[in-house]
């Protein structure tokens, strides 16, 4: 399970403040904490507070890679900001994200090829958010075809079945799970399947419980990557336990006490 830590995001008040004051130590600290908790990569999002998001993105990338040696997921809807982040990265990064919309694919797939980056792709497009698993699969196929055409290896793709808040679109939780199983069969080598996990519990009262329950279900269907809060220990323990139950890791009585793989 490839864990991308979600905490370096200007949407969080503490991070927004750190960005505003160019407090590198606070960002470095948050980076180290996430990696120590088991994150394999860190997502970097400037959030809405930035005056010049491209410049802020480059600064964040520099600060984070000074602190930790993991791949970064450069998170922005705007291609120039993505490019600024990718340029600053010392090691191959992950782009977060494109969608299935033509204009997005045109702008972002070439970036992934140029920077040899992984590419997170949300399965929505110009028509909006698909309402069932089949419609998600159709968009996923467009994305896969486009990646192959451009020479982006399909195991560099992270297809996101687009999880919606359970309190707003309850039926979509099941549709997204169904889509996971379909995505795996789309190409060879199989694409990664990634959840933007926290979205499922947006606005609910039991966020941590809902997050970890959903992730365990998704892992059983083949989800192998997620953007989540690695500082949620119950969630990280659930991942370890699911890995044991799916025979991806060998059981030992105190498996939770060892450092995660």
């Amino acid at each position: 399970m490839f864990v991308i830590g979600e905490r370096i995001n200007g949407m969080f008040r503490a991070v927004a403040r750190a960005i505003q004051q160019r407090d590198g130590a606070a960002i470095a600290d948050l980076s180290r904490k996430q990696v120590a908790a088991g994150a394999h990569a860190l997502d970097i999002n400037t959030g809405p507070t930035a005056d010049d998001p491209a410049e802020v993105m480059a600064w964040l990338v520099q600060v984070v890679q000074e602190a930790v040696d993991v791949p970064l997921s450069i998170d922005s809807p705007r291609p120039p900001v993505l490019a600024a982040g990718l340029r600053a990265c010392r090691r191959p990064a992950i782009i977060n994200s494109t969608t299935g919309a033509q204009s997005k694919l045109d702008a972002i797939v070439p970036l992934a090829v140029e920077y040899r980056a992984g590419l997170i792709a949300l399965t929505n497009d110009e028509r909006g958010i698909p309402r069932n698993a089949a419609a998600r699969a159709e968009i996923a196929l467009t994305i896969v075809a486009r990646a192959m055409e451009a020479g982006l290896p399909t195991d560099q793709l992270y297809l996101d079945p687009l999880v919606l808040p359970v309190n707003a679109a309850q039926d979509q939780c099941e549709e997204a799970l169904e889509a996971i199983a379909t995505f795996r069969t789309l190409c060879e080598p199989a694409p990664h399947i990634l959840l933007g996990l926290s979205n499922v519990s947006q606005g609910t009262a039991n966020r941590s419980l809902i997050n970890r329950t959903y992730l365990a279900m998704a892992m059983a269907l083949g989800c192998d990557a997620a953007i989540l809060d690695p500082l949620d220990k119950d969630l990280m323990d659930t991942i370890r336990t699911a890995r044991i139950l799916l025979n991806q890791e060998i059981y030992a009585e105190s498996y939770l006490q060892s450092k995660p793989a």
Partner: protein
Amino acid sequence: MPVELVRETSPGRIFTVTIGASAAEGGTRAKTITVGGHGALPFLPGDAPSPHRPVVAMEVMDAVPAEWPDVLREPLADVLDSPADWARKAVEVYGADLVCLRLFGPHPDWKDTPPDAAAATVRAVLDAVPVPLIILGCGHAEKDNDVWPRVTETAKGERCLVGVAVPENYKTLVVACLADGHSILAESPIDVNIQKQLNILITEMGLAPDRIVLHPGNASLGYGLEYEYSIMERIRLAGLQGDKMLSQPVLTIVGEEAWKAKEARLSETAMPPWGALASRGPAWEAGTAAAFLHAGADIVVLLHPDAVAATKRTIAGLAPAASA
């Protein structure tokens, strides 16, 4: 027709463990031994070349079991009473890469040797040979816990491999190894879950995972070999998949079990079709060792000089020096 070989890549890598410390590192060894570092299943340099070849350790004991057969006693008859001379012969005459010193004497049911005498034996062997030492206790938990701290202190800084830690008795040994700079041999009874559990417990006490060597149980050809073989293979596969608690090099003690086999012991008159008794025991050791090398053993501990020679040939054939 050209054949395209299937290559496997693995996300994990087996830890590298060095046994023995040179003068510059705080010890007195003229030669140190490094094992592990593999990124693939054994002897598949096309998948990932292994930086370190398997090595052969020869067993030296402070007390020889009464039931030892003559075939085993005969080549070592002149040194059986002196662990230091035995060790010297193992290295100088038979070319052992390391010496595995077994301290049976302290066992209360055997000689009940005091800890200081065991420590003196360790010192004498260290002084006799330039190679690194593996030091194993008598297996009596209480006595081992008395002996280990004295032994590790005597060998302080020599970076020995000391064992065996078992789930029921590991704390004293971990503390002693942490204090005196040694590594640990961790044993589980042919059980991958318990082996992992023991490693977690040991690392929780502060010993780094690259200071552990695994000993996944005892077996020999015809007597449970396939169980140990498959456990060793499973450990390596888990390590290669990234499980840090199963990414350690593996040691196997071959002699003890091989010489229990009836094939190694029954006389020629009792079993004429089996051929010369003198060659059966060494062959049983060497055959068992060859299988475990294929399963991923990094250190093979042997008793008979002929088995040592045969196993060294096997290693040379499987891993030519160029890929070592």
